């Protein structure tokens, strides 16, 4: 009997706690009551001491680790150099590293942690579009800053993200201009099945349509796919003037091996790749890619004192066998750009930095880069390179001057109607 009574009492206790919890939580603002960002704009960044915290968020584990670790290394080098030359606004940088684990959800979680638990002034990192898309609402919600160092598919301009890699009009369109100049009349498109290749190919098709280039085929392979015999056979049968390759990661190894096995070569049908940098050449095998083309904004072989110093410092810190690549350089530059913005604004506050951003420039290893305050991208010079027998990439062609970023391709007539 007493047991039963206790049980009833316990049951009502559970119910009471549940109701009390819900009532005490109350309700927050409804949509329209206040805009995004403004409701929780209070930041906890501590600017009182001799140091300022910044966050590096790269995948140190998982499938993307092989690429993102190099970006992390390069960011650490930049932080070290900034600290040894007096820091930013007189404050030493204190780096908090987090592992994005190659998973968008983890990126979002760790971004939240860096902003609200570590109270960092800005976060540097991200690689895949999925990771950036997952982090975007976190940065906009907390009104914090992300510096994203990788070339991507464009069609985005968040007030809380600075994009220091190329957008499509600084990488893909120059590559197409180059091929057109070389007299290429037809293309075959090969890509991984995700947002970057699909968007890039949509733009390539619009460009081809306007410029009298024929698209002989379009093939997608799932990420991580390694059996390319069918696709390479289709490429061979189509007999296009060149192949435009937007494959990502491991797939490139299998694709180029198969390509060579099928008897295709840079002389008969060159491949232009937008995701193969110095770092990947060793993995693919030099023999398989030598003579093939790439489109980037930076190569290790760029001949300038600034680049020589960067490459030398990187090798001194991480070993003589290491190479530098475009995303690493873009990440390195992003930290210095943030420093220049903070110094111009004389503040670490997001709103102040955003206001000061326009026109801030930095003499980067790739050349001088300038921030566009309107779309938060940077003006960069496009370089088409060829993989040399020394396993490095040598620029064949340059756009000559930095190209103004145009993430929504508003200045291109043929792209009208492409982006909604």
């Amino acid at each position, binding site marked *: 009997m007493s*047991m*039963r009574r*206790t*049980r009833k009492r*316990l049951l009502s*206790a*559970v119910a009471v*706690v*549940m109701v009390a*919890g*819900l009532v*005490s*939580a*109350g*309700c*927050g*603002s*409804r*949509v329209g*009551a*206040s805009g*995004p*960002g403004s*409701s*929780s704009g209070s930041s906890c960044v501590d600017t009182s001491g001799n140091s300022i915290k910044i966050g590096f968020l790269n995948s*140190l*584990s998982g499938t993307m680790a092989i690429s993102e670790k190099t970006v992390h290394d390069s960011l650490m080098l930049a932080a070290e150099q900034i600290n040894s030359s007096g820091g930013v606004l007189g404050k030493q940088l204190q780096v908090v590293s*987090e*592992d994005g684990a190659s*998973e*968008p*959800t*983890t990126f*979002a*979680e760790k971004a*939240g*942690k860096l*902003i*609200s*638990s570590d109270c960092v002034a800005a976060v540097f990192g991200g690689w895949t*579009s*999925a990771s950036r*898309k*997952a982090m*975007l*609402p*976190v940065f*906009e*919600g907390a009104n914090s800053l992300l510096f994203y160092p990788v070339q991507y598919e464009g*069609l985005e301009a968040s007030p809380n993200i600075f994009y220091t890699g190329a957008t499509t009009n600084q990488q893909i369109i120059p590559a197409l201009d180059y091929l057109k100049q070389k007299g290429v009349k037809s293309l075959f498109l090969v890509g991984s*099945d*995700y*947002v970057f290749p*699909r*968007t890039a190919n*949509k733009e390539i098709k619009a460009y081809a349509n306007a410029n009298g280039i024929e698209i002989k085929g379009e093939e997608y392979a*799932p*990420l991580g796919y390694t059996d390319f015999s069918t696709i390479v056979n289709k490429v061979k049968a189509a007999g296009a003037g060149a192949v435009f390759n937007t494959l990502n990661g491991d797939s490139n190894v299998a694709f180029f091996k198969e390509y060579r096995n099928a008897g295709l070569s840079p002389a008969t049908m060159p491949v232009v790749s937008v995701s193969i940098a110095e770092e990947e050449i060793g993995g693919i095998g030099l023999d398989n890619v030598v003579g093939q083309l790439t489109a980037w904004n930076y190569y290790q072989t760029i001949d300038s004192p600034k680049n020589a110093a960067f490459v030398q410092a990187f090798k001194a810190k991480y070993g003589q066998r290491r190479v530098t690549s475009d995303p690493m350089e873009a990440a390195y530059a992003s930290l210095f750009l943030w420093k220049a913005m903070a110094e111009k604004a004389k503040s670490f506050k997001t709103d102040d930095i955003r206001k000061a951003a326009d026109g801030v420039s930095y003499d980067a290893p790739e050349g001088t880069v300038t921030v566009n305050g309107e779309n938060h991208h940077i003006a960069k010079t496009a370089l088409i390179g060829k993989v040399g027998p020394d396993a490095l990439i040598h620029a064949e062609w340059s756009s000559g001057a930095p190209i103004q970023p145009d993430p929504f391709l508003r200045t291109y007539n043929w792209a009208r109607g492409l*982006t*909604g």
Partner: protein
Amino acid sequence: MRHTSAGQSRSNYGALCGLLLGALALLVVAPAVLSDFRLSLLGRFVCYAIVAVGIGLAWGRGGMLTLGQGVFFGLGGYVMAFHLKLADAGPSGVPDFMLLYGSGHLPFWWEPFRSPVVTLLGVILIPSLVAFGLGIAIFRRRVRGAYFAILSQALAAAFTILLIGQQVTLGGFNGLNGFRSFFGFNLYDPVNKRMLFYIAAVILLITLAVVWQLYRSRYGELLIAVRDQEERVRFLGYDPANIKLVAYVLAAAMAGIAGALFVPIVGIISPANVGVVPSIAFLIGVAIGGRATLFGPVLGAIAVAWAQTALSESFPSFWSYFQGALFVLVIAFLPAGLSSVSLLRGSWQRRQRFGTRAGRMAAPQADAAPSLPSESGLSGISAGSETGQ
């Protein structure tokens, strides 16, 4: 069953105390001591815990090693994401990603999810109906054991391939993200984020209460009977297919609800959240916590997710080794999960008391019903830990 009525009410008393403790911990202690960010992390873990309760029912009590709960989690999550995207786009608007990457036309099957009522029903009914259809096909044909596990895993793999291919209509590899509001409430407001945590916590407590009542019922006993000796149950005149179907559908509904809560709490749903790896991760929590107990799956799921976060924050470059070691230790020394610690002590005491081999043999048998499934579930755990994180 050797339970006397006194024994039964003692176990009821324990379950109620557990529920009360859980309610206090989640609804009073956690909001008081955790920052908004940590609370929202705990909210995500609570979502995993809701899936875990369902897996505990289907696998722990029903013997169905479901390696594909990510499918149902994803169905619930995507349905909720459809509604949130449409609500953000405004009446008769089109979600932003469709304008950017697609033709800008809304597919007809998105249209019903403009309605909040349809969405809430869809979150529960769509995973349930899919599970019902699958369940009928699978259990009527008497597919079970490893074959069932392989089938459910293949389903999760197929589901992700389907999602990744649909760039224009489902967001492809990136999934759906960038939600601004939840049924009219601003998702950027910390107060609303706290509220979401409370909702998730209360739903977890409710699912626990439902499962607890099921375990006490005649159905709960039949389910264990089916798990341990399906043929005998059939000879007694019951149809094991129906008994398993109920547990499978309930587990799917719970996963669907969890997915729907996950979307506003985390702000993204993508193929990476619903595929083979997350499906196995759900299972690992349940295995570590103790799959056949009421609270084991919940504690295991929260503990594993918490350990993953804590370890990766302290050791960003080599946390995955610690996690692997944790799984190896639990599986090597506590094959029935962390909640079996008390069980081990119990059997050790019994051994002390009887001191004979016979006594040792009898002990696990007496405890078999509430603690351990006798079938090949164990091989499933070790396979999971290899392919997991």
